[in-house]
């Protein structure tokens, strides 16, 4: 196709601002799907995506549109994940486009995430078309939102399209704006092949499917391709595009977007951001921006039933086929037995993996409190990266600890400022910027330790703002901090799975809270159980769970043995779901108690 008639664009929107509905409407209007075929939110195909209204994997759909100028255009809609955990994927998807629709809810306005992704798009020189959506709702204030887009983002919003994806209002205008405003792709079909990988997944029949944007040259079936980052060579066995069904087409040329498969076995071979080149006639330069993505958040995953350890390993391997962003390695906990230390891009990513394991593989999991990776310099000058509290060296061997720091942007309403500022202080935040956005909204820029975000920051932010706060962050570096390991002893035995790394100044307070939370979560045992929090050999908090006095069935009414048996069986079953540590039965929730520490019963 002549590049003059190709438009590649993506949609930037905050969750619930109507991205998926708009995408569906575009598909429907351009006839990519008949109304009969329309299932709501066609693009979010994973159950999880549909239920949560989030996009986890990217998609690329080709739409054929006959514009008012009489020409047929090929519009490639690249749908990207919107969550901060996946900002690298977002940036690669944006790199594959020349334009983006910025969808803003006509009553909610600009959110932190939208802002971050818009800046990302501007950074990639994308043409941005503001769309003010949901104008049919009674609370819609399109004029105020238009102004906000101009003041907050600094974008000319005079020509913003007023739309209601739900009602089909403004869809034609959006399509016309794409054709008129988004520039056709640059690059040349005559240069050697360079194609950007912006997503990949594993298909059990066809192996790894790669989504690419061809920047230069051609991509054909039968062609030998090479991946820039690892020099692996594959032979292309299929090329095509999604519309939204996969349609083979034999060739993609410069400017086009589509998929390829080449008998690649694992997604980790086809890394997002990598460049596909021709093996025989290789390009001499890779496309910019490739990064090895590294997990930022770590947690232990353990099967509740210890015999399911093998099952969990198989499941993790299968998931990894499809998700190269998470890592796992075997880990052994005294308390929880054999499990895996897993690394994730962020908390949402963790939740997704956890949910998929439970749902798709039917494994009951205990997840230990998530943490981050610290850089520890030992007294002998060695630098080690540590993501598991139990692997922290003895304090006497530590010269310094550096913790990952993020720049966090929070947008909220003025009336919630008090609570949010306090939260940010509590979380060791350093204010870098404070800006009124008009309309009662405020933008805060804070430097925060990542470790404070992974505990319970989202929940607390949500409750401090009644949900009217949005958050975006990116890693900004490392900072030397006096971190210490807080251990928990149950009946005198340290329970490794309950250890956590905290800032020294908070250690006492958090130790106390953790212990009192555990006292409420661990049921009475047949003997008194001491709970202690310790830093090294120093006990910083102690509580006692008094011994259970009675568990007895008094009645044996009319010889009803079965009732007795049922009750005993029920009690026994309940115990099976607990983990026995030493002599103490600890329920699963206790292992997550760590998560809530620092949260002084905000509910």
């Amino acid at each position, binding site marked *: 196709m002549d590049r003059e008639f190709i438009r590649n664009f993506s949609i930037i929107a905050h969750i619930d601002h109507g991205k998926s509905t708009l995408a569906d409407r575009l598909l429907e209007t351009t006839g990519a799907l008949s109304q009969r075929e329309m299932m709501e939110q066609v693009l979010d195909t994973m159950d999880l995506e549909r239920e949560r209204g989030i996009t986890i994997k990217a998609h690329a759909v080709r739409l054929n549109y006959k514009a008012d100028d009489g020409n047929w255009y090929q519009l490639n809609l690249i749908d990207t994940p919107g969550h901060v955990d996946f900002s690298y994927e977002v940036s690669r998807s944006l790199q594959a486009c020349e334009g983006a629709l910025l969808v803003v809810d006509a009553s909610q306005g600009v959110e932190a995430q939208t802002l971050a992704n818009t800046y990302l798009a501007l950074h990639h020189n994308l043409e941005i078309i503001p769309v003010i959506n949901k104008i049919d709702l009674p609370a819609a204030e399109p004029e105020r939102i238009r102004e906000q887009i101009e003041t907050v983002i600094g974008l000319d919003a005079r020509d913003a399209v007023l739309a209601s994806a739900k009602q089909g209002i403004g869809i034609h205008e959006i399509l016309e704006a794409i054709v008129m405003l988004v520039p056709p792709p640059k690059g040349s079909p005559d240069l050697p092949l360079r194609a950007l990988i912006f997503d990949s997944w594993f298909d059990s029949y066809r192996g790894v499917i790669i989504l690419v944007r061809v920047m230069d040259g051609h991509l054909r079936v039968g062609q030998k391709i090479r991946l820039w980052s690892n020099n692996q060579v594959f032979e292309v066995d299929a090329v095509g595009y999604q519309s939204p069904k996969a349609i083979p087409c034999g060739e993609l040329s410069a400017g086009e977007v589509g998929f390829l498969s080449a008998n690649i076995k694992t997604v980790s071979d086809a890394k997002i951001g990598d460049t596909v080149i021709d093996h025989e006639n290789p390009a001499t330069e890779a496309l910019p921006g490739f990064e090895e993505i590294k997990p930022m958040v770590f947690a232990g995953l353990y099967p509740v039933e210890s015999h399911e350890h093998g099952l969990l390993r198989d499941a993790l391997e299968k998931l990894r086929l499809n998700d190269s962003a998470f890592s796992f390695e075997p880990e052994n906990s005294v308390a929880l037995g054999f499990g895996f230390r897993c690394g994730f891009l962020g908390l949402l990513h963790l939740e997704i993996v956890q949910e998929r394991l439970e749902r798709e593989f039917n494994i009951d999991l205990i997840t230990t409190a998530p943490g981050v990776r610290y850089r520890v310099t030992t007294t002998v000058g060695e630098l080690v990266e540590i993501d598991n509290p139990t692997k922290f060296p003895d304090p006497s061997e530590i010269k310094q600890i550096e913790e990952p720091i993020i720049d966090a942007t929070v947008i909220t309403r003025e009336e919630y400022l008090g609570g949010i500022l306090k939260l940010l202080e509590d979380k060791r935040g350093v204010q870098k910027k404070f800006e009124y956005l008009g309309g009662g909204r405020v933008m805060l820029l804070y430097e925060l330790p990542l470790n404070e975000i992974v505990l319970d920051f989202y929940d607390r932010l949500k409750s401090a703002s009644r949900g009217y706060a949005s958050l975006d962050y990116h890693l900004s570096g490392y900072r030397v901090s006096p971190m210490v390991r807080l251990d928990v002893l149950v009946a005198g035995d340290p329970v490794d799975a309950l250890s956590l790394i905290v800032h020294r100044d908070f250690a006492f307070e958090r130790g106390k809270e953790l212990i009192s939370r555990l006292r409420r979560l661990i049921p009475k045992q*047949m003997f008194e159980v001491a709970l202690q929090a310790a830093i090294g050999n120093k006990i910083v908090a102690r509580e006692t769970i*008094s011994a259970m*006095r*009675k568990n*007895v069935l*008094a*009645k044996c009414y009319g010889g009803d*043995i*079965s009732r*007795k048996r049922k009750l005993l069986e029920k009690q026994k079953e309940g115990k099976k779901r607990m983990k026995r540590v030493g002599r103490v039965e600890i329920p699963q929730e206790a292992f997550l108690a760590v998560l809530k520490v620092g949260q002084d019963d905000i509910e």
Partner: protein
Amino acid sequence: MPGVYVSYPFCAQKCTYCNFASGVFPRDWEPRYLDALLREIGAHQWVSQPETVYLGGGTPSNLSAGSLHALLAAIPGRPWREATIEAAPGGITPAMAQAWTSAGINRVSLGVQSFVEPEIRRTGRKHSAELVARDLQVLAGAGIANVNIDLIAGLSGQTAASWNESLDWIERLAPPHVSVYMLEMDEDSRLGREMLLGGVRYGAGDIPSDDAIAGFYEVAVARLAALGIPRYEISNFARPGFESRHNLKYWKLEPYAGFGADAHSFDGRLRWQNPEGVEEYLDARPAPPAVEARRHEERFFVGLRLMEGVRPEQAEWQRFAAPIRRFIDAGLLEKQGEVLRLTGRGVLLSNEVFQEFLTT
């Protein structure tokens, strides 16, 4: 020789703590129920003569003399070694007592629960300590000295002092048999539901703590032992020779035949039960199927309820070696020669012990 249990689930009122299928039902159900009972008893194939009869409730003391007579006449083996009727305290007349003895009854179990008026009222009952004393005199006059008094530890509003007051009355009345039940709270009783839902009407908020109830129970164990009424089963106390022969059959896995709504039966091999509710029983709706008794488990989780303990076989000592060791170390079980039994502390934590003898 088997025992016979007859269920008569009709009451003048439903007690707040009650989690049985008993209660208040339409008046015309009673004659229908009696007919059904008589048919069921009449159809039973007696393998051997019953040794004991237990007329439980509900409130079987409300049965008319004629009905009671007809009912007991249907059961072979009179005079039985032990024939108990459960009775609501506070209104036993000489005529009633007379009717009971002439029908073959020789033991009465009084559902006193408490001798302290505010506690009694909260359960929905109407008797008083003095009325109970008079009941005992009436029964003695009719020749029934074998009397049990039920007490509940853990009633709403109960305190250490009020509990001792009830025990003072036991001391004064000196019955040969006492049952002490620790209150069970579940969704089957009004009180239990109220506790779960946080209501106030029946005083769920004033239910003593588990620890307090355990304390009351232990006070009762000590005081009754001092009165010469030692504990022979977790909830049962008797002067030697006055242990309930009928109830012992349950704990010793001897056979019994149950008749009426929710009655349970055991023939030495199979266990089964009748439909649970009165209506279901009247309509002869299907009951849960009979199941094979798992003796090797029951002899522990039922048998260990008796203070005399059990005598495990060699294979059982081996199979349960680990939990037995653990519980002996924890002071919940004790071994004396061939006998394994619960300790005093083990009684209060007996469910913890029993679970380990379930093999499934």
